[in-house]
């Protein structure tokens, strides 16, 4: 493999008065452009490890390299300006506006005003916040999710190669967290930063990481590998226990809706006559069809039975379709939607909301069986 961007070499952190070191003799390589997730039970030293990289905690032994340069003894403030840092509580400066917060590191680095201002707006746009609206607001006016967006924008402002994130989405409600995770993954596709990401949540680790390091007490690496390998081939009992039950289900977050074959459920486009609808339904093996509006957006599930049961107009029969999926959604999302849906299937639409097809439990199951076979069932 190529030269690691960050290298921890036999790094140790022990505190006086305690016998076991918080981090004991850890060697860890992080490669350019990857997201390495450090995950482990609380108290395993994962946050300490992260803070050793930007030397918020000074190591008691070992060396730290950044781009091949030994940074163990250089000025720590100078070092930190080159490394983005995002924490769970965000820590925005409450007395500074959003723009001033984002401009913190550029200002420390002595950027001129015009460049900084332009960069601030660029960063706000990057995290999907309208600069005109938010630039001059104060942190107290933001929701938790917005605050963390600004936190990420602030960390990226001076365009660091490395980003350290300590449970960045840990204090955010599940729905917003999911959205932020997805947005962050999309951002990372373009930015290709080298990211070390700490979490205690294995599901988040699987979702976010190109590689995962599962740590046990003293920041000892139990296993470090891609999520796929860890899920299908856990190194030992500790890893297995940490993954918990349902490794297959967790693996679903690694796959996207576009990975499975869509089921071709016939579509009925409005306006449609009852006779024609019945004819289509008869021909359909599932005896089900999707009713679309004139823009090809899915409206309702129509089944033969539901159509025969009432004399109501076709746009009032069957069951409404409330949630749909996009090809970029994970199969875990898809499973959730399918289980909620009345027909055991989920509608897949493109970005503009146009109907593409359906995915069913069967197609999901066949995908799991075809490549999930390696997962040991204990």
């Amino acid at each position, binding site marked *: 493999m190529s030269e690691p961007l960050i290298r921890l070499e036999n790094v140790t952190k022990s505190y006086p008065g305690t016998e076991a070191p918080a981090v004991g003799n850890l060697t860890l390589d992080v490669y350019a452009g990857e997201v390495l997730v450090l995950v482990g039970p609380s108290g395993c030293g994962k946050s300490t490890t992260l803070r050793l990289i930007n030397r918020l905690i000074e190591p008691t032994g070992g060396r730290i390299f950044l781009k091949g340069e030994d940074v163990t003894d250089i000025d720590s403030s100078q070092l930190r300006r080159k490394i983005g840092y995002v924490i769970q*509580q965000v820590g925005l*400066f409450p007395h500074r506006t959003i723009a001033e917060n984002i401009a913190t590191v550029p200002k*420390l680095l002595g950027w001129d005003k015009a460049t900084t201002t332009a960069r601030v707006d660029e960063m706000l746009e990057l995290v999907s916040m309208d600069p005109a609206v938010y630039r001059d607001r104060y942190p107290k006016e933001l929701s938790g999710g917005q605050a963390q967006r600004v936190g990420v924008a602030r960390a990226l402002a001076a365009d660091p190669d490395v980003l350290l994130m300590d449970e960045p989405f840990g204090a955010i409600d599940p729905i917003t967290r999911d959205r932020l995770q997805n947005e962050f993954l999309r951002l990372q596709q373009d930015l290709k930063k080298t990211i070390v990401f700490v979490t205690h949540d294995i599901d988040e680790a699987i979702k976010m990481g190109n590689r995962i390091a599962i740590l046990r007490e003293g920041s000892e690496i139990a296993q470090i590998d891609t999520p796929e390998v860890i899920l299908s081939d856990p190194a030992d009992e500790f890893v297995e226990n940490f993954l918990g039950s349902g490794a297959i289900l967790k693996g679903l977050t690694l796959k996207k809706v576009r990975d499975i074959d869509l089921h071709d459920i016939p579509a009925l486009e409005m306006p449609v006559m009852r006779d024609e609808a019945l004819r289509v339904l008869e021909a359909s093996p599932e005896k089900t069809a999707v009713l679309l509006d004139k823009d090809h957006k899915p409206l309702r599930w129509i089944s033969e039975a539901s159509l025969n049961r009432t004399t109501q107009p076709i746009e009032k029969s069957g069951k409404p379709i409330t949630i749909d999926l996009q090809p970029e959604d994970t199969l875990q999302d898809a499973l959730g939607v399918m289980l909620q849906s009345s027909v055991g299937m989920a509608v897949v639409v493109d970005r503009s909301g146009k109907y593409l097809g359906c995915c069913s439990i069967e197609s999901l199951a066949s995908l799991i069986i075809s490549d999930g076979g390696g997962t040991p069932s204990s």
Partner: protein
Amino acid sequence: MDFLERWWTFVSTRGDQIQSALGEHTVYVVTVLGLASVFSISLGIATRRNVLARELSLAVTSVFLTLPSLALFTIFIPLVGLGFAPSFIALFLYSLLPILRNTITGLDGIDQSVLESAKGMGLTPRQVLVTVELPLAWPVILAGIRVSSMLIVGIAAIATLVAGGGLGDFIKSGLARLPLPNSLESIWTGTILCLLLALVVDLILQVLKRATISKGIR
């Protein structure tokens, strides 16, 4: 009504006297408040990481505030003589505790995550202090300065007993001539002017507060 008229005559015929007494009083307030603020804030910053030093400085300044004011004004006379000096020292010692206490409380009350992110972005300890800690602790510190300012305006009236001048002169001379004409009027003059001065000082500090505290933490 009668008294008010007599009082007004008293006040309006002693313009010069009032002006100089008020001037002296104001000098006490301004100089003591300025110096005590600088001293207490510096002390608070210097001792904040050292529990022993912090507790010791709080204990000592508490003692100053507990001493009877009459005693505090007089014990320095053997060292510095009569007049402005012993009064200034006494007032200075009095005003330390509220500002020191609030500096410590203000700095302690800052959200740890803000400090963590400040350090994490590469601010030096000095930059963290000047650009993050002090601005965030400032509302609390300023509240301490306000308490001290009220304290000083009131207690500065005692300076007259050590020949330090100020509005206390009116109160003392009134007290000395008590049943005689113009004695009560004199006492009231000193008292009301103290009150007015306190109001003005408070108003100035309010303006300072609005001007110096960020909208984000108001």
